[in-house]
């Protein structure tokens, strides 16, 4: 592994550690968590029981170390609300989010890259304008507005699709469209400009001067180069999907971690919130690391020079 990737790996770990520490500090800053968690009328014995149970009686340093020890063990504590293991709660919800999110991600990448590349190839024509207009529109309609509008049209007016829940595959359609559309819009804009850069690059003229067919010029030379910047946006995209899941899953009552997050926030179920925050941060950091790996693989200039030129 190159020095570059090693450095990125270290940086990712440090970032994750920082996120975890900030969460820890923030939790203590918020004051005595028991005041938040237990009704004011709780009797001292019960209070003491919970202090002991959640470890709030220990010195801060010990709590901090214990916190990381538990994290490393995958022991995320119990929900304040239901008392169940946070791990179990998340394990129930996560697959639903992954199913929805990854499908949407794949869809938006295919659609976005396709539309962006086509727009770049037909730059300045009706096709280009159409794609760009559609992308500006899709980009400007927030998930919650789009979700509500889709429910209104397809579930209320036409009654062809279910509005909420996760019982059948048909339940997936509206949330999928909602998540994928803004992602595709963002990717399309980015892919278009990356592709335009590549199409205007001097090396493309060189490829044409060799007498290569236009198809090969576009795919092998232009698209291959355009993919390098495009992968960066994919790293962001996972973050958007995970962040957006809170809204979309709430709109469609999809039982994933996003909805769990919102419900837990409303109930101030801190162990669950904490676990979800760390999980999502880890997901985004891992995605960015994967993007860096893809970068090194796509761009030969990286691995040797140890960084972007």
């Amino acid at each position, binding site marked *: 592994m190159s020095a570059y990737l090693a450095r990125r790996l270290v940086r990712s770990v440090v*970032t994750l550690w920082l*996120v975890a520490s900030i969460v820890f500090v923030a939790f203590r800053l918020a004051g005595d968590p028991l005041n938040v968690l237990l009704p004011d009328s709780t009797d001292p014995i019960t209070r003491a029981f919970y202090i002991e149970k959640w470890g709030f009686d220990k010195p801060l340093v010990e709590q901090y170390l214990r916190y990381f020890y538990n994290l490393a063990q995958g022991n995320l504590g119990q929900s304040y609300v239901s008392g169940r293991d946070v791990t179990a709660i998340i394990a129930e919800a996560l697959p639903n989010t992954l199913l929805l999110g990854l499908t949407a991600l794949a869809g938006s990448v295919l659609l976005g890259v396709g539309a962006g590349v086509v727009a770049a190839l037909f730059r300045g024509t009706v096709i280009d304008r159409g794609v760009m207009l559609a992308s500006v529109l899709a*980009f400007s309609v927030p*998930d919650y507005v789009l979700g*509500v509008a889709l429910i209104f049209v397809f579930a209320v007016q036409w009654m062809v699709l279910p509005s909420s829940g996760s019982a059948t595959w048909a339940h997936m359609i509206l949330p999928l469209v909602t998540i994928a559309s803004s992602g595709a819009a963002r990717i399309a804009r980015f892919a278009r400009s990356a592709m335009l850069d590549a199409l205007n690059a001097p090396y493309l003229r060189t490829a044409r001067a060799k007498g290569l067919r236009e198809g090969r010029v576009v795919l092998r030379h232009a698209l291959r180069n355009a993919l390098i910047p495009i992968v960066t946006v994919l790293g962001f995209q996972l973050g958007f999907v995970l962040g957006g899941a*809170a809204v979309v899953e709430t709109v469609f009552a999809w039982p994933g971690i996003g909805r769990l997050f919102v419900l837990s926030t409303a109930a101030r179920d801190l162990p669950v919130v904490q676990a979800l925050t760390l999980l*999502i941060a880890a997901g985004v950091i891992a995605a960015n690391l994967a993007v860096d790996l893809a970068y090194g693989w796509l761009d030969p200039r990286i691995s040797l020079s140890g960084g972007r030129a």
Partner: protein
Amino acid sequence: MTALIARRPPLGALLAGLCLAALVLSALLGPLLSPYPYTQTDLMRTLAPPAWMDGGSWDHPLGTDQLGRDSLSRIFYSLRITLIIGFIGTAISAALGSLLGMIAGELRGWVDAGVMMMVDVQASLPFLVFALTALAIFGNGFWVLLAVIGINGWEGYARLARGMVLSLMHEDYVTAARAVGTRRWRLYRRYLLPGIRSAMIVQFTVTLAGTVLLESALSFLGLGIQPPVTSLGQMLGEGRDYLLFAPWIALAPGAVIVLLILSISLLGDWLRDLLDPFET
């Protein structure tokens, strides 16, 4: 390459500008234009449809909600709240981010490393996740909300300001100005701000759109602006439950949000093309 002057804004940007101006104006004049106080309920006329639908009347041009409150008045008011929070939040993050970025670029070393690590941390958390976590920990009071919204987007400004300071360090005229003992702050005002201004303006539109989206999303989820105060997102969230009988309650604020975001981002795109000499 092309001169900035002599470029007329394209139709889209023009329309966006007009639309945004109209929205800001109606937010400003909202109290004058509103037919009713936004909290006034009328239990005799709940869920009344907009004027142009069957059963609607011009008493309530956009209809009423489940408590008989006038939708139009509430939209004026919501727009006001949404825009105020949007601008304040964006201003806070611009000030915060630029300051941190400048300090980082100026002091280098550990301070710089620390600020850049925070930028990394921020970038690793989708902002809504950060906001939800903060609200869960600190409770969803108004000040917490404002702080969260004010933090949103700071890292963009920090990167920008830091990069600018670093690039200026090596400019001859800055070295010269330092040598004659020009004060730091004057130096920045003279050289840094002009260089950074256009990028800042573009960043401002991006952050403004992001801030409006964030506030609306939180309010939509019931975790942002709390009743009786209202915002566009909150109206949408409440109206969602009445999609079946009274879709206008949700659709009207939804349409306003879309118009707002659309015009901000179209204007932002145009500004970017206009101000960025390197973009084609």
